[in-house]
């Protein structure tokens, strides 16, 4: 493979990571931006999406595409429902106090994780891709499904942006984000908005998981990585900023893939250093620098 082909491969892999990360992190960002809740259980909603995709693909017969499309509909609905229930039963009762909700979502994390372990077991659960297509690019073959993941993420993120900026419910959500007391004074049922936002955030994580699970497999412990990376993305991009989330996800996704794939080829003498771990160290360093020099994130607004 030529250097250009390897770079293109790294870019594509980076885009796949970034797409899934952008979807997952946008859910986390939405929840924090509007509800001011740091949802430590967000990674578990991602995990639930993946195991539900496995469950659907396992129990629905016929071609994988049918089960996949079904999973893409069922997983966000079920996970969103669980999230809305958690919001009503737990977070609302805590009056969305920041410290209390962190502790509560840590508890939720363990409940969901151990629940998945009990129901689905400790083994990795494979989910077949909806289609098997290999495209010949410049010098290498590439999975058509991975390109579809990128396209799907772009469509979903654009839809989310359109919902937030061009619909009445988006307007209500933005008003609630700015000032929940004043929103109430104008008839907005903030509790209902919060339940919906929490469900939407969890649903986005579930969709991301369904998209990636044919590549990664489902496992009850798979929520930790997406959670940590989502926090990195949200901190770099700025809490509550969808644009920032996408840009930061691209940055982290690219760093995550370009470093271990491309740099060892360019600098073979130092190849052993360019590992996925180095990519994560660099991402963490960027998070630290952002926290020091621009704590509101690249696209976030500074709050008084």
């Amino acid at each position, binding site marked *: 493979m030529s250097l250009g082909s390897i770079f293109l491969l790294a870019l594509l892999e980076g885009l796949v990571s970034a797409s899934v990360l952008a979807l997952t992190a946008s859910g986390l960002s939405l929840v924090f931006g509007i509800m001011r809740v740091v949802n430590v259980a967000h990674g578990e909603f991602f995990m639930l999406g993946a195991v539900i995709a496995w469950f659907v693909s396992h129990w629905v017969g016929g071609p994988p595409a049918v089960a996949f499309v079904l999973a893409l509909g069922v997983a966000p609905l079920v996970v969103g429902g669980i999230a809305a229930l958690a919001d009503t039963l737990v977070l609302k009762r805590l009056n969305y106090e920041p410290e209390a909700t962190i502790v509560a979502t840590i508890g939720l994390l363990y409940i969901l994780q151990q629940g998945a372990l009990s129901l689905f077991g400790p083994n990795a659960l494979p989910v077949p891709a909806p289609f098997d297509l290999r495209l010949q690019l410049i010098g290498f073959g590439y999975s058509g499904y991975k390109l579809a993941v990128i396209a799907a993420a772009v469509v979903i993120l654009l839809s989310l942006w359109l919902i937030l900026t061009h619909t009445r419910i988006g307007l209500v959500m933005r008003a609630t984000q*700015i000032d929940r007391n004043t*929103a109430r004074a*104008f*008839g907005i*049922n903030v509790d209902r908005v919060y339940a919906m936002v929490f469900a939407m955030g969890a649903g986005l994580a579930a969709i991301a998981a369904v998209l990636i699970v044919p590549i990664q497999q489902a496992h009850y412990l798979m929520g930790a990585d997406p959670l940590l990376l989502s926090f990195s993305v949200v901190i770099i991009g700025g809490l509550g900023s969808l644009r920032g989330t996408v840009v930061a996800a691209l940055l982290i996704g690219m760093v995550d893939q370009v470093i271990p794939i491309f740099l060892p080829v360019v600098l073979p003498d130092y190849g052993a250093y360019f590992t996925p771990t180095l990519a994560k160290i660099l991402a963490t360093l960027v998070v630290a620098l952002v926290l020091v020099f621009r704590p509101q994130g690249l696209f976030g*607004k500074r709050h008084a």
Partner: protein
Amino acid sequence: MLRLEGIEAGYGAVQVLRGLSFAVEPGEVLCLMGRNGVGKTTALRAIMGQVPVSAGAILVDGVAVQDLAAHDVPKEGIGYVPQGRRLFGDLTVAENIEIGLMTRGRDARVREKVLTIFPRLRERLGQISRTLSGGEQQMLAIARALCLEPKVLLLDEPTEGLQPSMIALIRDTVVALKETGVATILVEQRVDAALSVADRIAFISGGQVAETVDTGGMTEQSPQFAAYVGV
């Protein structure tokens, strides 16, 4: 139209309102005056359901609203212009107005009416509201509340920090609303502003109404202002 009967309310263990009672009728402007911390803003917030009421009743046309969820209170026809305007600052002027309209399912007719009252807002519909001048922000805060077509309008220090021309515009708006039968409760620190629009002034002290006076015979030198407001 709006009647408070023996309202007790506060923030946690701190009780601010101690048996507050007053009433305002259609087409009347009642001004609440008093020193800082006596409970004027708390009274408005209690009406809006933003401060828990531990005793007493708040009646709008006979309907008790003190136990309603805060988001159901404006649906009873109460428009609120909070202290400091509390606009949705990152939203445009048009979006702030849209929020007001959706509260009671109002339509383009009401939007047009409100923009006729405040034509300057029509020129700024696409502007982010926090970038408006102080006076324009106050216009928008009032316009947003008027989008509800309220029976009762609560105005919390609407003239605070505004230039005289803007104060005059707000006074004219309140007078015009009064003529349409809207009952207005105005919290005001400026004696001249209060006297220019209010029909009655309720002086609040210690979380209750100490004295209610018709403004007809009052001047800026009336002894109540020195006694209850400290001016």
